[in-house]
Each structure stands twice: as structure tokens, then as C-alpha cells.
């Protein structure tokens, strides 16, 4: 049987098309995986921010005071609580590195932003406490203004905003692991349960 010209090209084309389709499928599966993992982390962030909000004085809750009057007065303590609960919920060690090699988080988790918004309902001013790069809080008061978080949510009660940054594993081939950087952020309002 005589071999037709170009049959090798056709075979190679079919073969590389097959590999290309496989890469596309893997890519979309990977995107879905990153999306799901991002959602899981956001849920853990919310739990950690809630825990930081619990830093408030219990006596101000158990009385008949309105939630509008509650403020987070000790930003450092709230931040320490947030860090503690974040480590617990994301299964990180004291250096914010994942404890298990099977954790989808690869590498160090960095806290990009941590901002506390204390609303004073009397004059509608907002005390904004922002964590700076040295790990200290800078406070400023915004009077009679509409203040929103970096996510775009307007402050209606005392709120915590946090944003973290880390790499997730996308694929593993032998010793080679691909990673993708993600930066989930969450706002937690003191009235949310």
C-alpha cells in the first residue's frame, strides 16, 4: 500500500490537537478548583473576622445598648485575634505557612489589609483604623462622610475589612507544582451573624 504524502502531518496535527484539548480541559478544571478554594478561604476569613469582632466588651452587648454604639476600642487585640483564628482555620503554622503538604495553599499567607471602621451614630463619623506596613494602626476620623470599604460596602455599623494574599496549587507534575496568586477580601459588619 502506498503511503500518501502528508499522512505524518495529519497524525501530528491530530495528536497535538488532542493534547491542546486536554490542556484546555485541565485549565478549566483548575479554574473551577481555584474558585472553590477561594470560596472556602473567604468563609474562613469571615469566621476569623467575627472572632476579632468578639473582642468588644461583653457588657456593652448584654445591656440594652444598641449595636450601633458598639466599637472596637483595642485594634491590636482585635488584629491578634484575627491572626490567631486565621491560622487555625486555614491550618497554618506560626509563620503563616501551611502545615500540610496537601493543603491547597502553597507558601506564606500574607495579610495585605486589615482595617477597622468604628461608626459613631451620634454624628455619623467613622474612625478608620488602618494597619500599616510596620504592623501599627493609623487612626483617622472621617466626619459626616459616606465611608466605604475597599470592597465598596458603605459603613453602616462597626465593620472589619481584611484582605489576604497567597498562592494556590494549580497542578502538580512530579516535583513541579504550578501556583496561582489569589487575594480574597471580606467585610464583616458587627450586626452580621
Amino acid at each position, binding site marked *: 500500500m502506498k503511503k500518501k504524502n502528508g499522512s505524518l502531518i495529519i497524525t501530528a496535527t491530530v495528536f497535538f490537537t*488532542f493534547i491542546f484539548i486536554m490542556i484546555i480541559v485541565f485549565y478549566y478544571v483548575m479554574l473551577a478548583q481555584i474558585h472553590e478554594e477561594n470560596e*472556602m478561604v473567604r468563609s474562613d476569613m469571615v469566621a476569623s473576622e467575627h472572632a476579632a469582632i468578639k473582642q468588644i466588651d461583653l457588657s456593652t452587648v448584654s445591656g440594652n445598648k444598641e449595636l450601633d454604639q458598639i466599637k472596637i476600642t483595642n485594634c491590636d487585640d482585635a488584629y491578634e485575634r484575627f491572626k490567631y483564628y486565621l491560622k*487555625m482555620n486555614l491550618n497554618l503554622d506560626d509563620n503563616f505557612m501551611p502545615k500540610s503538604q496537601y493543603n491547597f495553599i502553597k507558601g506564606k499567607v500574607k495579610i495585605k489589609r486589615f482595617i477597622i471602621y468604628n461608626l459613631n451614630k451620634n454624628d455619623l463619623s467613622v474612625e478608620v483604623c488602618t494597619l500599616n506596613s510596620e504592623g501599627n494602626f493609623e487612626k483617622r476620623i472621617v466626619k459626616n462622610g459616606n465611608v466605604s470599604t475597599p470592597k465598596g460596602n458603605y459603613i453602616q455599623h462597626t465593620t472589619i475589612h481584611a484582605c489576604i494574599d497567597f498562592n494556590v496549587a494549580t497542578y502538580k507534575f512530579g516535583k513541579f507544582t504550578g501556583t496561582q496568586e489569589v487575594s480574597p477580601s471580606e467585610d464583616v459588619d458587627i450586626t452580621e*451573624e
Partner: protein
Amino acid sequence: MKKKEGDIQDFILQMIGIVICFIMMLCGIDYADTVIKYNDANEIARKYILRMEAKGYLASDDQAELESDMDDKGFSNISLANSTTTQVHYGEEVKLVINFQETVKAFKLENFKLEVTNDNKNLTITKASTALYFNEDGN
């Protein structure tokens, strides 16, 4: 019918392609399976930490249910030591620590033989939150 040189070249190329695709798929499936299982354990932990927030501790019926859920997902040697099992008050820490064993498949290609081995890995998943539970005294 005599095989021609071009046919053999095609055949070798196709075989190499099939073997590469097969190895890629095995590595992908193996890794995805491990991560999915770890995520499953995380999801279970999240479900029970929410119950603990509401109740203020991990109740004995929830412990049994959690162990059953983990067992259903194929995990073994489940231990809940160091978890909060006595009721705490509002704002106090509730902690869930799940120690378990996961069987991880490992593919090894040695001397042109593909070997599949099962390794048991000890893993720990922790979740922590604060209790939303108020007792009758309002604490």
C-alpha cells in the same frame, strides 16, 4: 503485507503520544483526588464548627455524626482530641481538631513498570471560632 518505514514511524509517534497523555492524566487525577479529599475534610470541619458556634461545644451526637461523615469519605483513624467538648460561654473560643488518616495513591514508573502503592498519611485539620451560645444567665 509488508510494513513500510513510514507506518512504523507513525506507530512509534502515536505510542509515545499515548504514553505521555496517559502519564499526564494519571498525575493529574492522582493530585486532584488528593486535594479533593483534603477539601472534603475541610468542608466537614466547617459544617461542624458552625454547629459548635451555635451550641458552644461539640455535642456527643455531633461527634458521632462527624466521625461517620469522615468515614463515608474514606478517612480512617479519626480522633477529635483537643476539640472543645464542654460548653463554653458567648465569645469564648470553640475549637475543632480532627486528626485522621488519608490513603494516598502513589504512582511509580520503574524499569518500564508502573507500580501503584498506597501510603497512609496522618493529617490534622483545625477550625476555630467563637461561641454564639448564650446560657440562661445571659452569659
